[in-house]
């Protein structure tokens, strides 16, 4: 797939729905990052609006609570002048009685052009996309499977600081098994040519790590050594109740990122986290607030990346 513009400066952007980053080419990723940069400029203007999506309706369909991601998408949609509808569904569709199929058809009947969905079931975004005829689907997280926009904003943030990412090393530390962020980041960073190393308790690693194409270091010090980026994943308290690790304190002592662990990375290595942070669990405050942390910048990057994605996927005629 070519992501180079043709002679009149137009790109053939082949993605309508964005479900996961599987199969995206390196060219496509870098192209998107480049476009996101220009979108970030819009965020700095006195009038933070461009008419790209004027007349289009975006529905933020969130089955799982998430204020941060939803607000990020909402800002991106509004900056592009789309009409925004927020639809929060608490509980599964079965609990509510309405099937996802019916929800999908209701949305189209209402005139939705773009559906941003977060759902607790793996495969939910793909399922929704298969049921919609006209509207496009952007996956804001489907169970433990994928969170493509998070990975894209992570790539964008890293690229802004480091430049070309080929050959750079990124250590992903935490609960890889249950993390959709990890799965998407692994695909994204590998596609641009990074060396991706995983670390965390063995009970929180998928059994067949080979399938992910990464190395696993049980000792995070080996994973973080000479890394250009250290990415910490959120540890959910429920996992401790499931018996996957015995206590928060033990997790923090062995796998938490503190200044000592960070000192093993390359000087100036970026510290990243998808948020919200559990201070004192996967990340110590000294690191979260330190000058290597780009965690707040990731948040800003999120709006820019989502704007670029919306422009490319939904901006034109279909």
């Amino acid at each position, binding site marked *: 797939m070519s992501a180079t*513009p*043709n002679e009149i*400066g*137009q*790109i*053939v*952007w082949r993605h309508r729905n964005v479900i996961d980053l599987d199969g995206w080419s390196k060219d496509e990723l870098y192209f998107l990052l480049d*476009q996101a*940069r*220009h*979108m970030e*400029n*819009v965020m700095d*203007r*006195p*009038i933070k*609006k*461009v*008419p*790209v999506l004027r*007349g*289009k309706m975006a529905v933020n369909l969130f089955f799982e609570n998430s204020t941060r991601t939803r607000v990020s998408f909402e800002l991106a949609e509004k900056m592009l002048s789309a009409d925004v509808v927020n639809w929060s569904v608490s509980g599964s569709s079965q609990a509510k009685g309405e099937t996802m199929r019916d929800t999908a058809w209701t949305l189209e009947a209402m005139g939705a052009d773009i559906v941003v969905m977060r759902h607790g079931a793996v495969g939910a975004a793909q399922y929704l996309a298969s049921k919609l005829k006209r509207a496009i689907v952007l996956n804001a997280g489907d169970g433990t499977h994928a969170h493509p926009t998070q990975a894209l904003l992570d790539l964008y943030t890293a690229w802004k600081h480091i430049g070309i990412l080929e050959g750079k090393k990124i250590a992903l530390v935490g609960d890889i098994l249950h993390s959709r962020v990890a799965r998407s980041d692994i695909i994204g960073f590998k596609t641009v040519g990074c060396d991706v190393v995983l670390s965390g308790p063995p009970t929180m690693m998928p059994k067949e790590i080979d399938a992910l194409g990464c190395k696993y270091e049980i000792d995070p010090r080996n994973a973080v050594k000479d890394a250009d980026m250290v990415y910490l994943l959120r540890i959910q308290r429920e996992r401790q109740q499931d018996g996957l690790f015995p206590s928060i304190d033990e997790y923090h002592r062995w796998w938490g990122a503190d200044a000592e662990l960070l000192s093993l990375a390359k000087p100036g290595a970026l510290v990243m986290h998808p948020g919200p942070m559990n201070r004192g669990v996967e990340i110590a405050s000294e690191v979260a607030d330190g000058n290597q942390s780009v965690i707040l910048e990731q948040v800003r990057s999120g709006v820019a990346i989502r704007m670029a994605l919306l*422009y*490319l996927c939904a*901006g*034109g*005629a*279909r």
Partner: protein
Amino acid sequence: MAELREKARLMSSQDLNRVIRRIAHEIVEHNKGTDNMILVGIHRRGVYLARRIQKLIEEAESVKIPCGELDITLYRDDLTTLFEQPVVHSTRMPQDIAGKNVFLIDDVIYTGRTIRAALEALVDLGRPALVELAVIIDRGHRELPIHPDICGKKVPTSKNEVIEVRVAELDGKDEVVICERDA
């Protein structure tokens, strides 16, 4: 995509550079001097032309006029009808344009829609005191009531022709050619 076939050369390198020089002087004349003005080139070729004009004015008047670049992609009124998305380029203003005399610079004016989008973009960036338009070629076929204040040359064309203003920085040489779309 139809093939473009070069039909004739309208301006040689010498011709084009003379026109650019004249436009630079006309801009200073319209502005009644070099105060409170800003040049804004429209991506892509307008940006290179604006920089050249900036240099020429500096040579003539010993003043470096601030020069910005404007990408109008996100303001186009035809986005929803395109199947391929135009690439977005950067928009950079060296100063706040509020209260300034903005001289928009583009290579060719055709339907006028690019300039309409540029005006909308400018207004979102600030409130200029006045906006004037300078182009190298006016090829006719306007669809909106928009006209250049300063024009290099008026060239009547048919709808299946294309005028290319080529600049050395991008195309390797300076010239203006007229091309025809093969059916």
